[in-house]
């Protein structure tokens, strides 16, 4: 493997994890960024706060109008507790591991071991929020009210801090709740099915007037990595895409020692044809168990 193979990743570094499905095929999922998760949490907390304020106003308005202010205060104190505990549970149960914030940012909760996401896991991971968010908040704002004081308070503060920062200390960005519930937060995938790049080539070939034909020597120059880079270039419809194709095309012409000059207008057609031939060649190799990862892989092309 060479430097080129190491650089295969797209510009944005994505953290991919494999989960084994019960069907025995492993699926690749992309881990949610810490930033996205923090964002989702902030959205949820804002909704929660607004909901609480709304509920408090409503409760006081109703109980106040019938002269039961005190009852109102109790209901408010209890509903705070219910709100903050059940908000996350309710939505994650209902929306299959998503809360409004998570949905907005396109992330969701799954089981880390590929099993179905159970309601127990959802309860457990959200139960920990009380410990991760609200107790540290309590310690910061109310000091001794948590039943600890002095040195213990300092310790519990450090401790709470360590719990909050847990996602930064492991490679799967797990928070304490994820850790004990066996869950993982991933990016909700979305990729459309694009046209197969072979389509036009196949038609061209079926009609029998392919302009270009390549020798095996010319096809043996490149591997799968280069093929897929070419695919990316061909799918790129932006104006820069055209420029990039031109540069890449020239490089290919040089590399495979294509005898005839290729003009600018013909470059796309040439690349299409080369992509088609190269893919057919490499896929043929795959069927025979030969996998040429990139241009450095396998026997060097005959000079």
């Amino acid at each position, binding site marked *: 493997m060479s430097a080129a193979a190491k650089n295969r990743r797209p510009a944005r570094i994505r953290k991919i994890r494999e989960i084994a*499905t*019960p069907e025995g*095929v492993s*699926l*690749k*999922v992309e881990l949610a960024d810490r930033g996205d998760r923090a964002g989702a949490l902030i959205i949820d907390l804002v909704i929660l706060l607004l909901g609480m304020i709304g509920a408090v106003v409503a409760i006081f308005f109703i109980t106040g109008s019938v002269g039961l202010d*005190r*009852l109102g*205060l*109790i209901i408010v*104190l*209890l509903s705070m*507790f219910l709100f903050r505990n059940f908000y996350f549970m309710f939505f994650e*149960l*209902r929306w*299959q*591991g998503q809360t409004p914030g998570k949905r907005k940012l396109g992330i969701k909760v*799954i*089981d880390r*071991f590929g099993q*179905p*996401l159970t*309601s*127990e896991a*959802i*309860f*457990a*991971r959200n*139960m920990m929020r009380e*410990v991760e968010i609200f*107790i540290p908040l309590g310690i910061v704002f109310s000091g001794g009210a948590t*039943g*600890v004081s002095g040195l213990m308070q300092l310790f*519990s503060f450090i*401790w*709470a801090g360590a*719990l909050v920062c847990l996602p930064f200390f492991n490679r799967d960005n797990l928070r304490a709740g994820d850790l*004990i*519930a*066996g869950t993982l937060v991933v990016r*909700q*995938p979305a*990729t*459309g*099915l*694009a046209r*197969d790049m*072979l389509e036009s080539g*196949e038609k061209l*070939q*079926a009609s029998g007037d392919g302009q270009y034909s390549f020798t095996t020597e010319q096809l043996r120059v490149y591997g*799968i990595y280069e*093929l*897929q880079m070419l*695919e990316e270039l061909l*799918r790129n419809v932006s104006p820069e895409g055209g420029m990039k194709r031109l540069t890449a095309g020239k490089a290919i012409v040089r590399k495979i020692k294509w005898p005839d000059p290729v003009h600018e207008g013909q470059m796309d057609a040439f690349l299409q044809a080369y992509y088609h031939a190269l*893919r057919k060649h*490499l*896929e043929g190799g795959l*069927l025979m168990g030969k996998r040429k990862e990139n241009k450095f892989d396998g026997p060097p092309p005959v000079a």
Partner: protein
Amino acid sequence: MATPGTKSYQFRMERQEGWLQLEDYVRRAEKDGIAALSAREVFELPHLYRGALSSLSVARSISLDRNVVDYLENLTARAYFLLYGHQRPAGQAFMRLLARSVPDAVRSISREFLIITAVFLIGLFAAFFLVLENPDWYFTFIDQSMAQGRQPGASVEDLREPLYAVKDVGDGLDVFATQLFTHNAQVGLMAFALGFALGIPTLWLVFANGSTLGAFLALYYSKGLLFEIGGWLIIHGSTEILAILLCGAAGLAIARHYIFPGRMSRLQALAVHGRKAALVAFGCLLMFLLAGLLEGFGRQQIVSDGLRYGIGIFMLGLWTLYYLRAGRGPEEDEA
């Protein structure tokens, strides 16, 4: 012959209809929930999913069209989330949690519970006898601010009077009850959360709680008020102390399975047993809620010792029955 020559192209052409259909179902279900699909579509969903999954396996090995492979990875992952995601309605899930999961989780930490109880009792007896021996020990266990005049020098009457003080409901008592709940719940959760620090602070916290109680009891015992303080404490204490012990036991369970994961990997052990521990803690939250109500309303309204003991012991029996017996029946269908 007009058959296209490339195998991966043929492969795709033959199967992509099923993929697109699956994508359509998944998209609708993601948007409006699984109820958006008709019965027939729901029936087809797993078949289409398995089809796509097998296409993915094939595509990974024969196709070099990156878009197809990426698309299938995504599509199957989405369908997988849908099929293996959570489908139980929230209310039903909650009922099941209370009826089955919580008692079951409590039973799974019985050993830790025994240890925690032992630690608590050691703290209690140690403080009790130390204070009896020498009242100077009292403030080692109990904070000045917490004592509020309940200290060794106080007269019997001074100590007795607050135990039976009847407060009016209009006296801010109800609010006091809810605050008690919030406060106690936080202590319990702290005991649970400290299990993450390998359990030592949990043991310490439980020991400290036990010794506070022991010192209190010793003070009242020395004035011949043990029976009275017992009633004052047990009415809510049976629920509250049980909840604190359970929280501590849950914390200890986390620590134990992290240190000794057995056959599983550490993370796996933590996931399996931590989940149960969290459910125990969740059950304890509800217990704290009840204890707060008993403490705030019950204790201040009911002054008869007999009734106080009666309620306290009844609650203890209720919890024992619930945690030992509930949810043992066969699992109803896993839908």
